[in-house]
């Protein structure tokens, strides 16, 4: 049973990697952005099906960090500088949101 599950997962991942890097006729940065988007899909799975609310908070935090990297790659692809400004502001807001969620989970007020 375990072998079947691992084999299916590795087969799906290998097929997606092969399609992404060897079949798709696109620049290299587009393939890397596709990998980041696929990781974001995994993170959304953890957001939807987290057993506790701490899992969802962690997943949203990690999603913010993934989006920072993806925005850097997008700015590199389109050769425009304002993507990096969006990434910095996103990092700031994600940090503050994580701290506020942690305080709320602990049961204290925001201004405590």
């Amino acid at each position: 049973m375990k072998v079947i599950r691992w084999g299916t997962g590795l087969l799906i991942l290998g097929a997606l990697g092969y399609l992404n890097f060897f079949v798709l006729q696109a620049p290299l940065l587009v393939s890397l952005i596709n990998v980041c988007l696929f990781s974001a899909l995994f993170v959304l799975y953890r957001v939807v099906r987290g057993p506790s609310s701490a899992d969802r908070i962690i997943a949203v935090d990690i999603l913010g960090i993934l989006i920072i990297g993806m925005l850097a790659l997008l700015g590199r692809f389109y050769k425009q500088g304002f993507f990096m400004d969006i990434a910095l502001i996103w990092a700031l807001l994600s940090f503050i949101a994580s701290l506020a969620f942690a305080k709320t989970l602990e049961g204290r007020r925001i201004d405590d």
Partner: protein
Amino acid sequence: MIRQVAGTIFIFIGVGFDFLGVLGLIRLPDVYNRLQAATKCVTFGTAGLLLGVFILEGFTSFGFKALLGIAFVFLSSPVAAHAISRAAHRSRVPLAPETVVDMYKADRDAKS
């Protein structure tokens, strides 16, 4: 030429670490294990990706913003992770059944 190769290698390492960290976020059994794998790998992955973008861009405004993003991710991500794990332990999120020792709970029991 060397700059292109080094930046591309750093970007590949960063995207790979992002993907592995998200796999850890999916597969590990516990909130704290998930937090450890995800935060460590995603911090290194995004920092490596931004470092690669900086090496590719050079000393332009885009590159300096990428360096600023590295500094901010390194400063903010461990703080958020620590706050989330502390809040999760205080709100009694259960540990994995394979856990051997829980020193923080023993400490708090001895103190109160």
